[in-house]
């Protein structure tokens, strides 16, 4: 990372909005730490297994429930999987589902909100009443019931999570679109014959990018929490695959035998990553100076 030099020719070099935001983001210490934590976890979960190879598919009944040792730094679980390796493997699924579901929810919310806000009138009213009603339905329980009915795989989980959590981003992006759709450049585009689709894709969405990015960051944090919750209850990512929440689903038996090494690592990993994404989200929101969740 280069050192920022505040004295370096602020006049000669035009500071664009994006650069200014980036600079403000980098000055936010918590947000930068959050970013570092996310990068470290991504390396840990996706590069780690290449360097620290463990068997996460076969059970090894000769080495179950071992406390941390030289051979197994975080011990082994009830079927003999190396816990450190499982933390990487499960973390990969947690991060993948979180990122994909957060992105999916934001994309659905983005399109819904932009179309509603841009079109206005009764279409907007109808579309936003749907959102109001959807928000009143407890998403968590609908998520649990759907998971119980369809027993989703990893991508099925992403799809269900995306479908139950796009409502809040759609509100934020609609609010943004409402102000943008009356800007001169949008009206000019319409006057010279540009299509609605062009107005939305070329002007409205690029100009709401900051709102979209901030919403997506918080969505990722929420999705990681949600999938961990559902997997903890045994309804999320199914064995042999697992995620951090799934690793904790065995926590109840582990806790009574005092096997703390099966409980603390996945739990602390969830907390760290969720805090990191929330810190990044806060930093981006302040840097872009947009409204978002407080």
């Amino acid at each position: 990372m280069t050192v920022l030099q505040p004295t370096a020719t602020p006049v000669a070099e035009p500071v664009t909005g994006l650069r200014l935001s980036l600079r403000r983001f980098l000055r936010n210490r918590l947000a930068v730490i959050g970013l570092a934590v996310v990068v470290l976890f991504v390396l840990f979960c996706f590069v780690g297994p290449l360097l620290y190879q463990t068997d996460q598919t076969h059970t090894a009944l000769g080495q179950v429930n071992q406390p941390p040792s030289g051979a197994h730094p975080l011990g082994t679980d009830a079927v003999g999987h190396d816990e450190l390796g499982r933390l990487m493997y499960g973390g990969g699924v947690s991060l993948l589902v979180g990122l994909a579901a957060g992105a999916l929810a934001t994309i659905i919310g983005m399109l819904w909100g932009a179309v509603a806000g841009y079109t206005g009138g009764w279409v907007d009213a109808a579309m936003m009443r749907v959102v109001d009603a959807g928000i009143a339905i407890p998403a968590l329980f609908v998520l649990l019931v759907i998971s119980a009915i369809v027993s989703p795989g990893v991508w099925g989980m992403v799809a269900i999570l995306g479908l139950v959590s796009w409502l809040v981003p759609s509100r934020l992006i609609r609010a943004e679109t409402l102000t943008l759709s009356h800007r001169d450049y949008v009206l000019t585009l319409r006057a010279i014959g540009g299509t609605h689709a062009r107005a939305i894709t070329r002007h409205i969405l690029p100009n709401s990018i900051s709102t979209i990015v901030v919403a997506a960051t918080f969505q990722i944090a929420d999705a990681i929490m949600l999938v961990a919750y559902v997997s903890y209850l045994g309804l999320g990512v199914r064995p042999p695959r697992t995620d951090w929440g799934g690793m904790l689903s065995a926590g109840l038996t582990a806790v009574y035998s005092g096997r703390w090494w099966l409980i603390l690592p996945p739990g602390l990993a969830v907390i760290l990553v969720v805090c990191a994404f929330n810190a990044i989200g806060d930093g981006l929101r302040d840097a872009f100076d947009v409204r978002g969740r407080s």
Partner: protein
Amino acid sequence: MATVWYLVRRVAQAVLVIFLVTIVVFGLLHALPGGPARGILGAQATAQQIAAFNHEQGLDKPLVAQYFYYLRTLLHGDLGTSYTLNEPVSALIVQRLPRTLVLTVLSAVLGLLLAIPVGMWQAVRRNKPFDYAMTALSFVAYATPVYFFGLVLVLVFSQALRWFPSQAPQGDTLGQVLSDPAGLVLPVVAGAASMVAVFSRYMRAATLENLSEDYVRTARAGGAGQRAILLRHVFRNSLTPVVAMLGYYVPVLFGGALVVEQLFNYPGMGLLFWSAAQSSDYPVLLGCVLVISVATVVGTLLADIVQRIIDPRVVAGNS
């Protein structure tokens, strides 16, 4: 007058949302393997029995007609029969809901009792070490899964220190549940933690807002001390909106109760939901979702109304 219109509109909206919820649950019921017939006859029903039942109950009619039939059974309080427990779902919920309410109310009360003074003191000592420490703590608590916090509580206070039992009190009546207060400590604390995180933030914000109001300046000018201002004015004005936020919190409370009950083996609605999920007991799952959804809608409605009455500046439809 504006308030009356607001109330009418808001209640109508809530009723509409409840209808929508029934449509969603009806949709899920039809998405079940075997459809609603299996939901009522049970998992062992034969194909002929299902066909006969479908004809008898009008389930071979168009979906819209079926939906109205479903609504009629709901209005009669009929939520179907549990696959595994062989009892009406409504009876199961009526039996267990009070226990869940006891647990969540205790958690909410404990959470608020901690959150309100913490949040107020944070506002008073704004940007001082205490404020920063509590902000950091609530940031972490917000990201902590309830079940993980509960597991850590058991690990520390039940397994290592042996201060409290790891099992919630058992028993069929509320009296039996309440007769073992030590068993309630860990479940209640586990449920309260995330409440403290969220509500201390609300209280901090509400106190800060009130402290900058003109009436506080007037009271100061009139010679009122900091203590009197905080207790007599700011506390009273911040408390109601913060407590009203509980109404928006109903689904989170139920979500917390679900894992807390599973973790501590507390015989409430959360444990019912969890065991139903393990055994694919769909009538129970959908019945619980319906009850929780209605509670959510009512909670939101009450919170909106309270906020509107204490502060008419909250404009209708601006939710």
